[in-house]
């Protein structure tokens, strides 16, 4: 337990978290500091390629676990299910209408890849490793939640969602899924030999790029919080910190049933606990234009993301260690 507390404290003082805090503070203080959009996108592409590729290489090293397919299935089911829980909770805890509640719910069924990366970092520091294919699980969990949200609207809403032909393909083929899955496959195919060639680019600078990316996320989250304070009613805020542990519990159960390693369980918990802020918001703007973006973006990026980054991940690690006896 002491080790865990030390880890949690160490986590809070890691460069990653401190750069996020710097961005948040700079934004609150209305500094003109900003990262160009192209650079932010470039870093995001780099991070996706890097973790996809590393996951693929790891699978190529260790072979496919018999649980790979089951894990993908579990991820799929959880991504479909979590929005339903989130929706029920939101309708109880907050005054959000059906549209806003469904839109928020979609975000929590989907995942945040940066939170996933931060968790990988933390379990690494704790000397644990994890199944390489968790990256594929992450990819699989990106989109289904969107469908659940649309179903919720169709079921409980007044006006239906805008279900045009193109939308489903657009969701499944959005840039982050393609990059993650594509790099995963390339890593799998090229294996250790491919890794040797590009490790100085893909592995070595990773933590540093992550710091800059989190600086940017802090800046963007801070701007969002500053401008959307009004939507953060106590109920909404509370949801943002209660939902992650709920999701994590589901991930814990799934991870244990699947027999994942302790590290793998932590990652599964983190995936379930995290909320999307890239793919789902874009899908919501197309399918649910009436939903208020400041609500879901502020919750996801301004509340749940920092919660997971600072308290959530160490908590999930502590619980998973306790339960698996690692």
């Amino acid at each position, binding site marked *: 337990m002491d080790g865990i507390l030390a880890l949690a404290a160490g986590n809070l003082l890691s460069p990653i978290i401190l750069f996020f805090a710097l961005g948040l503070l700079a934004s609150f203080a209305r500094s003109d500091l*900003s*990262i*160009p*959009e192209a650079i*932010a*996108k470039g870093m*995001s592409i780099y991070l996706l390629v890097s973790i996809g590729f590393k996951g693929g290489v790891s699978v190529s090293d260790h072979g496919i676990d018999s649980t790979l397919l089951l894990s993908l299935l579990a991820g799929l089911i959880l991504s479909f299910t979590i929005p339903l829980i989130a929706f029920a909770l939101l309708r109880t805890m907050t005054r959000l209408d059906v549209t806003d509640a469904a839109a928020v719910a979609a975000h929590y069924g989907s995942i945040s890849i940066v939170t996933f990366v931060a968790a990988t970092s933390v379990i690494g520091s704790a000397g644990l490793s994890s199944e390489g294919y968790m990256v594929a699980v992450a990819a699989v969990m990106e989109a289904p939640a969107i469908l659940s949200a649309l179903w919720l609207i169709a079921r409980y809403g007044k006006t239906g969602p*805008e279900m*045009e032909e*193109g939308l489903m393909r657009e969701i499944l083929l959005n840039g982050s899924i393609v990059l993650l899955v594509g790099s995963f496959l390339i890593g799998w195919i090229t294996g250790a030999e491919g890794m040797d060639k590009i490790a100085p680019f893909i592995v070595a600078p990773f933590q540093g790029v992550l710091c800059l990316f989190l600086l*940017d996320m802090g*800046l*963007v989250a801070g*701007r969002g919080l500053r*401008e*959307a304070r009004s939507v953060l009613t106590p109920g909404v805020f509370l949801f943002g910190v209660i939902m992650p542990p709920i999701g994590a519990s589901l991930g814990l159960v799934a991870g244990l049933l699947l027999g994942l390693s302790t590290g793998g369980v932590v990652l599964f918990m983190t995936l379930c606990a995290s909320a999307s*802020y*890239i*793919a789902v*918001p*874009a899908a*919501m*703007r*197309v399918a649910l*234009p*009436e939903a*208020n*973006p*400041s609500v879901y*973006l502020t919750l996801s990026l301004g509340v749940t993301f920092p919660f997971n980054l600072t308290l959530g991940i160490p908590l999930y690690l502590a619980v998973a260690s306790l339960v698996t006896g690692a």
Partner: protein
Amino acid sequence: MQTHKAKRVEITIEAVMETRLTNALIKAGVTGFTILPVLGGSGRSGQWSREGQVSRAGGMVSVVCIIRPDRLDGLLDAAFAVVERHIGVVTVTDCEVLRAERF
């Protein structure tokens, strides 16, 4: 220099809707448009900026069509069908163009 009357339609719309709009315009027989980037803005749904953003949500583009006056209504109908449920601004200005055969 000889100029000809035309309409300049400018549609400021969310980036996620760009392809939907341009597809609708093409379907409605619009043969030319130009897409301008937008850095930020403000409206009833609050202030926004592209700085540091990685998601395509929360960003807009401006689609400019120069069109013969008699084709304006078709264009506006097509554009409106896309814009209707979405945030965005549609303006029409009178203008003159060189090389009218191009429009």
